[in-house]
C-alpha cells in the first residue's frame, strides 16, 4: 500500500533525473561530458523501467531493462574507445 502511493513520486523523481541528464547531454562542453550524460541516461532509464514494472505488476520489463543495460555499456565502451583510439574496431 505504501509502495503503491510512493511509486508515482519515485517515477517522477527518475523523470526529473532523466531531464537533468538530458540538460548535461545537450549542454555539456566536451565530448566526454556528453558520453557521461548518455551513460547516466541509460542507467536511469533502466531504473525507470523497473519502477514502471512494479507499478503495473508485470515482469515483461526485466528483459527490456537487461537489454538496455547490456547495449548501454557497449555503447559507452564504443564511444570512449572511438575518442581514445580514433577507431572502434581495429
Amino acid at each position, binding site marked *: 500500500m505504501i*509502495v503503491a502511493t*510512493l511509486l508515482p513520486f519515485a517515477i517522477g523523481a527518475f523523470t526529473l*533525473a*532523466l531531464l537533468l541528464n538530458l540538460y548535461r547531454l545537450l549542454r555539456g562542453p566536451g565530448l566526454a561530458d556528453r*558520453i*557521461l550524460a548518455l551513460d*547516466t541516461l541509460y542507467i536511469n532509464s533502466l531504473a525507470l523501467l*523497473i519502477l514502471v514494472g512494479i507499478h503495473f505488476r508485470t515482469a515483461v520489463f526485466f528483459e527490456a531493462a537487461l537489454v538496455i543495460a547490456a547495449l548501454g555499456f557497449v555503447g559507452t565502451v564504443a564511444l570512449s574507445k572511438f575518442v*581514445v583510439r580514433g577507431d572502434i574496431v581495429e
Partner: protein
Amino acid sequence: MQLPLLLDLLVALLLVIGTAFALIGSWGLARLGTFFKRLHGPTKASTLGVGCVLVASMLFFTFRPGSSGVSLHELLITLFVFLTAPISAHLLVKAALVLDPGARPAPPKERGKATRA
C-alpha cells in the same frame, strides 16, 4: 495484492533511498563544475540508487502474493550494472584525458630517487 506491512515498509524504504541517490547523482552531473568533478555523481550515487531500486523490485516480486518463487532477474541486472559501471567510468576518464591532456595531474616528486639509485 497486498504485501505484509513490514515488507511493504522495507520496499518503500529501499525505493526512497534509491530514488534519492539517483536524483542526487543526476543533480551532481548537471551542477558540478568540471568533468572530473561531474564524474563523481553518476559513477557512485546513480549506480547505488539503481542497485537499491533493483533490490526493492526483487523483494516486491518475490513476496507478492501469487509469485512463483524467488525473482532473480533483477539480481542479474544489478550484478551487470555494478560490474560495468567502474569499467565505463575508467574508459571515460581515459577518453577525457586524451581530449584534454592538460587535465592530467602532475606526477609526484620523486623524493627517494637519489637513495634508490
